[in-house]
């Protein structure tokens, strides 16, 4: 499948927006402007954008705690997203959720999740609901290699197949669950093999740093789900450049290993592809990069100028009327 120039520009812009968002998040934290923690997806951009590029606007995603890239890929308003990251009242979640819980329900993003594997059981239920509503929608359910060892994952695979839900389960294997290497308990191919074991036809693993490869694999699974062919499991092999969270000292991996993976930068890979296919010149790609960083800078300015929630509103919104 060959990309149109328009699509190439769009994906390139989203990749740079994600990269810039994560870098800004880190800077804001270092500058003491935000508190808490964050989980950065630098190095994983192609997995998020390649996967979600296969969806229609009316489709859904549900994510994991490293979810900034997923959120941008699903078309989030960067200002509202950054405002949420800053804990502001006009953020997506009124500052109640923060980095680990950003959701854009109207935009089809059913939320990041602070519990590893927490979104997977819900994904099955969303699939059940979509099937009952019969509006031809699908869900992409993202989780990491860490979640693939949980009971939640295995119970959910069984239920997903039993009820033939229109869900594509996407494991973004960034190689480490905090410090625990995925290679110590499995390999990415073995995670993908669970799809076959549980009876999911369209399961496979991809070079998760190759946007086109991810897109093609996920597209097949999305088409299958949409046509009533049931769920699939896809494993996108990738790597997180940064630590698990702000507490990480990288004691479980070497600097050399990180450098090796940086050579497989998904953005550079996509630029090389666009260049080779004459979709974008280097100059055009640079302009897009500038645009991406400018968008995030504007979001930062918006977020910092936004109001904090009023303490009097603390108890609002626990219950639905």
């Amino acid at each position: 499948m060959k990309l149109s120039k328009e699509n190439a520009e769009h994906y390139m812009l989203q990749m740079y927006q994600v990269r810039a968002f994560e870098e800004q998040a880190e800077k804001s934290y270092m500058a003491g402007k935000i508190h808490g923690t964050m989980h950065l997806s630098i190095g994983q951009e192609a997995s998020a954008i390649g996967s979600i590029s296969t969806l229609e606007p009316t489709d859904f995603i549900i994510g994991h705690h490293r979810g900034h890239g997923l959120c941008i890929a699903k078309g989030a308003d960067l200002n509202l997203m950054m405002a949420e990251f800053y804990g502001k009242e006009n953020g997506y979640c009124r500052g109640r959720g923060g980095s680990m819980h950003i959701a854009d329900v109207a935009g089809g993003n059913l939320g990041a999740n602070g519990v590893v594997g927490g979104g997977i059981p819900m994904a099955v239920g969303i699939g059940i609901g979509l099937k009952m509503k019969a509006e031809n929608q699908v869900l992409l359910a993202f989780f990491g290699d860490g979640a693939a060892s949980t009971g939640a994952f295995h119970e959910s695979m069984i239920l997903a197949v039993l009820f033939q839900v229109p869900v594509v389960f996407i494991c973004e294997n960034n190689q480490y669950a905090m410090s625990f290497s995925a290679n110590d308990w499995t390999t990415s191919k073995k995670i993908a093999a669970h799809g076959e074991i549980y009876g999911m036809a369209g399961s496979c693993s991809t070079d998760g740093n190759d946007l086109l490869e991810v897109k093609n694999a996920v597209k097949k699974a999305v088409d299958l789900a949409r046509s009533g062919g049931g769920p699939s499991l896809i494993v996108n092999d990738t790597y997180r450049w940064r630590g698990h969270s702000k507490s990480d000292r990288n004691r479980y991996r070497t600097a050399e290993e990180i450098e090796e993976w940086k050579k497989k930068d998904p953005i550079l890979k996509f630029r090389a592809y666009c260049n080779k296919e004459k979709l974008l010149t280097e100059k055009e790609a640079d302009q897009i990069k500038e645009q991406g960083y400018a968008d995030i800078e504007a979001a930062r300015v918006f977020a910092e100028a936004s109001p904090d929630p009023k303490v009097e509103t603390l108890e609002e919104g626990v219950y639905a009327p």
Partner: protein
Amino acid sequence: MREITYLEAVREAMTQEMERDSRVFLIGEDIGVYGGAFQVSYGMLEKFGHERILDTPITELGLTGAAVGAALIGMRPIAEIMFMDFTTLASEQLVNQAAKLRFMFGGQSSVPMVLRTPAGSGTGAAEHHSQSFENWFVHVPGLKVVMPTTPYDVKGLLISSIRDNNPVVFIEHKLLYKTKGEVPEEMYEIPLGKADIKREGKDLTIIATGIMVQKSLAAAEKLIKEGIDIEVLDPRTLRPLDTESIVKSVKKTGKVLIVHEAVKTGGFGGELAGVIAESEAFGYLDAPILRLAGREVPIPYNRDLEKAAVPQVEDIVQKARELANLKV
């Protein structure tokens, strides 16, 4: 009026709601052809088919999460957890997800689901099939917790719970399933958060939950013969709690005995005692607030031990008599 059992009332509420609202469906273990471990959903598969009676393998976490996810996009699932003991396996999805999604997303969504589960001892099923965990869930903002004690209440409260836009933990008691009572055939709602005075009295208030409401009523019938007139208050919903009715009753009688089956330490009785002590009813108390609750043990198998582990009618009689006669 027609009399049906508590179990039939649960089934009727679910059936009528499913007929009324196509978003309502059931998910749980052995709820289809088997009819549910207690036969609550017996016959519903024939009526609604596999599309709306979702029989699952043993996946408490998975099926509860599936209910949460379906609710998140506007369905109205009823999940059945076969025994309340197994809600421990489901609690991640219930406590971390269902209860928090609305708040955590700044009000962008809601989770209109019901998790039904039978609790309590008295069936000889011992440690792993007899527990009463209501207070664990009462402790979680975002959840509602309902504990109906009569066939009439269970139907009206279940209908309200299904129609509620929040996750509701709906706790049935196994020993109540076969009890009979008058239940209207038509649909009706009993609002969540409204207590019910099950027996009016003037000498002391017993606040009881679950099966202890029936036991307290039996105790009250015995004590009236001794001239002790007991008011039995059933909160029906533990969260939100009808503090107003509780305060009113305690102000009237001046004495309060709290009775529940769950273990006393950390149980709902502590919360009730706290609510009363903090309220204007405190000044009306003529005696200390007393609690009668489950003993500090797992529920044992042996019949005598099992009975001794939770309050029985005779225990309530004795404690209530003691309190009624207490002069401070």
